[in-house]
């Protein structure tokens, strides 16, 4: 059984400009021990997926279709109280604005202990020992547990946030742009810690990022999102070797490389669509250079084109 499974999830935000269809039928499976990356541009709905899973959406958002199955149980049908039990204990999250995710008036160590006491019925002493162990695991000096967040550097705060997500031994961690605002050297150290934790506990993760390079290093499977849809999903190797969706292909040609031959990049023409406009066809159609006649009117199905390689595109031929 998959640890986490999304079945044609649909979610929208009500805004002044109209209804924004942020997630428009997304399906995804995360098996135990997998690190699945969700890659896409800002506004493609990748953060909304994370927030939907934890049911932490803002009041103007509604989930109006699909299922989110956690070990076979539909999270969308749980009461608020039951959801609160699962949140953090079973599914935890590393948030995007890590700098602001710590409470400035509590000592960092106490914030971790609070989560433990809340969810795991430990004594103060047991909780404190556990906190120190997790501190060491993410590369923080346990002696700094009595410091306040403002006494930490950006990289240390990010480590504290990762420690926080690990503290209750969750079944799955959702990491949303965990290293985005950090300098490249700090990012690298955080990535090293994440890889270590993954290897040691065979941790299951959903790793959300706009940076395909980071995703390719951390994840063994990748889902590519565009305008609220998952357009391609497969294991990292085959997705990189032979990307099938035109958007994925364009994305691969949008990142300059630090090694190898220097070549002119083409990027992707045009701009992402407004999610308030609803069109019956493929969302990528206006920017696609391989489009067919029917792409403008019929939304392509999300199909398994090769083994474990799913694509939503009319122009991609089935080879199974």
């Amino acid at each position, binding site marked *: 059984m998959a640890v986490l499974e999304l079945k044609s999830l649909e979610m929208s935000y009500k805004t002044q400009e109209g209804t924004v269809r942020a997630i428009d039928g997304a399906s995804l499976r995360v098996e135990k021990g997998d690190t699945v990356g969700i890659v896409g*541009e*800002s*506004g493609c709905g990748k953060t909304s997926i994370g927030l939907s899973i934890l049911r932490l959406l803002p009041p103007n958002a509604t989930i109006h279709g699909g299922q989110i199955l956690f070990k076979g149980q539909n999270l969308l049908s749980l009461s608020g109280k039951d959801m609160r039990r699962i949140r953090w204990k079973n599914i935890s999250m590393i948030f995007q604005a890590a700098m602001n995710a710590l409470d400035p008036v509590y000592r960092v160590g106490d914030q971790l202990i609070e989560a433990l006491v809340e969810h795991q019925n430990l004594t103060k002493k047991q909780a404190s020992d556990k906190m120190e162990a997790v501190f060491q695991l993410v590369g923080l000096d346990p002696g700094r547990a009595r410091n306040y967040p403002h006494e930490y*550097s950006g*990289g240390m705060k990010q480590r504290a946030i990762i420690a926080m997500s690990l503290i209750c031994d969750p079944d799955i961690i959702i990491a949303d742009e965990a290293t985005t605002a950090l*300098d*490249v*050297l700090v*990012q*690298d*150290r955080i*990535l*090293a810690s994440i890889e270590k934790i993954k290897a040691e506990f065979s941790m299951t993760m959903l790793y959300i990022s*706009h*940076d*395909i*390079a*980071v995703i*390719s*290093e951390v994840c063994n499977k990748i889902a590519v999102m565009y305008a609220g849809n998952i357009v391609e999903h497969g294991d*990292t*190797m085959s997705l*990189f070797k032979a990307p099938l969706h035109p958007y994925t292909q*364009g*994305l*691969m*040609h*949008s*990142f*300059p*490389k*630090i*090694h190898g031959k*220097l070549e*002119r*990049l*083409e*990027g*992707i*023409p045009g*701009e*992402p669509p407004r999610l308030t406009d609803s069109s019956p066809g493929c969302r990528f159609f206006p920017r696609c250079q391989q489009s067919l006649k029917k792409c403008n009117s019929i939304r392509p199905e999300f199909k398994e084109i090769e083994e474990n390689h799913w694509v939503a595109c009319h122009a991609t031929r089935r080879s199974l």
Partner: protein
Amino acid sequence: MSDVIVKTTNLTKNFPAKKGIFRRSNGCIYAVHDVNLEIPEGKIFGLVGESGSGKTTIGNLLVRLIEPTCGRIQLNGQDILDLKKSEEIHFRRKVQMIFQDPYESLNPRLTVYETVAEPLIIQEKRSMHGNEKELLYALESAGLTPPQDFLYRYPHELSGGQRQRVAIARALIIRPKFVVADEPVSMLDVSIRVSVLNLMLELKDNFGLTYLFITHDLSIARYMCDWLIVMYQGKIVESGNTEEVIQHPLHPYTRALISAVPIPDPMVKRRRVELSEAMEDTSKPPLRCRFYPKCETRSPICEREYPEFNDKGHAHFVACHGV
């Protein structure tokens, strides 16, 4: 080698550091220290480094948004720091800037027409009306097509990429010689970035521009720049031809920086250079090498004196005792 368009000599900028509840000034932060640059005309000159390395400060100094603590800046051989008021307007005409955040660098109350026409009104004492022809040309050059559709729009009606193109059109309409671009694509979406970078490359050739291209992203620096300068805590640690610096980095900091860039290829396993988290205090003048606390190849001399900036052949300069 082509002519030098911008030259700095011992450029230094200290910011006062305020501490304590009364915000009393005690000491200062050495943001940029003793920087000597020679930017060749017609080239893209890259400035890379982490946040706090002083790269934005140098950009702001070169366009005179801030004044240096000491040192000299020359543009085409003329010292720009002691210009008369009447000469200053000519300087501003030659030097323009493209900022990082197109959501903040455009006035939300001005239409695209008013924004892009503003330099003409100030520089050439024109009236607001009757500049359509030049504006259309500038917008079209910046890739906003068809240009007449954009003239009377407000920034909130434009996407991030379009806003940055408006900022580029505004910088180019008075035909500058030297453009400082401070992280021009870091706020843009991934799929839009490349098209803005390609546009900047095209405009360089069409308008005969020289860029100072400030970025934290080494991959983008490699894509754009002819020359590269690596900064660390207010000091230049390495400079040279871009390919030379990236393929054969000499300074231990540059080597660590390049090894930390994630590679978008699952077949390649990257070798990590682990650095200590210790940091030099930037409120002290750089008497010893700034990289000393992190450096793995340090020796006693590194603590005694700041390393000189030496040519290691092929115009590849590095400031390190160990090289």
